């Protein structure tokens, strides 16, 4: 399982979500990738992130299994993680 987080340094929701992202990484073992919306523009655009940040993309075998957009709680992030892992 690979989880990609797309965020921007000036984004408040991304800052708020840093804590729950860390909690997820601490609790589960997965390939965590962090992309910067501005700095990694070319890579980011491959995922069509839209205009709302942060974006969490759940991947397995190069296939997107789901995504979460915007500020999320740990429960929401964990629920999605477990859901796509089933």
């Amino acid at each position: 399982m690979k989880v990609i987080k797309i965020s921007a340094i000036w984004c408040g929701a991304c800052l708020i979500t840093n804590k729950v992202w860390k909690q997820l990484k601490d609790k589960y073992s997965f390939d965590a990738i962090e992309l910067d919306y501005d700095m990694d523009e070319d890579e980011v655009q491959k995922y069509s992130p839209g205009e709302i940040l942060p974006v969490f993309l759940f991947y397995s075998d190069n296939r997107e299994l789901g995504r979460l957009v915007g500020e999320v709680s740990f429960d929401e992030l964990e629920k999605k993680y477990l859901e796509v892992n089933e």
Partner: protein
Amino acid sequence: MVYLDYSATTPVNDSVIDTYSKVCREFIGNPNSLHSLGIQAKELIDASTKQIANLLNINPNEVIYTSGSSEANNMAIKGVCLKYANRGHHIITTELEHSSVIAPLNYLSSIGYEIDFVKLDDNGQVDLDDLERLIRDDTILVTIASVNSEVGVRQNLSKISEVIRKHPKIFFHSDVTQSIGKEKIDFSLLDLASISCQKFYGMKGIGALIKKEKLIIEPLIHGGKSTTVFRSGTPATPLIASFAKALRLAYDDFNEKYQNVVDIHDYLIDKLKKLDVFINSNDYCLPHIINISLNGIKSEVMLNALDEREIYVSTQTACSTSDYSKAVYSVTHDKDRASRSMRISLSYLTTKEEIDYFIKNFGECIDNLSFRRNL
């Protein structure tokens, strides 16, 4: 043309431009140079700094010139947190901060600092009990803007300071960019404060970090000592002199100008109440800022429609990525209203004729856009 975006930036006062150009022409020396032209420039900077300090009721040594508030916010937040990392890595802020506060916090978060967001009450003000609850032994900084730029909610810096002062190891920074020149600020409540001249009819490209004299911070820009070791670079004599001029002018007839804004604010609110809009700003807001929500019309569409009529307002800060405004949500608790908000920001220069022109055109735009929506 009707300009109602004074919180984004203000037009530069003609006298400030005169000061700037006069100093450019007549004070050509590098203030770090030892010859008489350098000394002359240095003396002008010292006199300007003294004037700024007198107006703000602070010590001249507490003024560090920056390129504006973004640099001052970065300097304060990174400067304190990197310098006092041995004390802890915990920072407290609000969801109402400008991106130039969010960005350094995001940077610090990426290198291991932990950031908590204090709750806001129904009026958008800091919940003091929650602030007290969040404070930990390893908290090193609380950063809370005096006024939110989008809605205009004022924070009670005095009450916040009371809570923080119970914990002597915590520094209190406030981005006072939206307050400076509009309302008097008690800088004794703060360890660090960020200001920008472009908000009070001064030049763009100059601002300051007001820093308590004894407080040491890690500089962002290393170099020679110049005016301060905390921010190296040849001091911009014309900008600094124009800063002092703009601030002095802002403080002339201060109360009268404030009352002008209150009057024009009340006049506009009366007119807005007759239109199909929601008024989001409340009694805790600075009268210079009125945030409203449109009923079923996207704020960007309205902004463009008004722009075509040479009326200039603003929508949610351009560099936000949420589908709704956190600041508007904090006072409305309504995501739909928070996603359709628009800011009208006033000045003592704003006239009733301008408001009448705005209201007439705004009403027409609402009718036109609502009609198109219903087709």
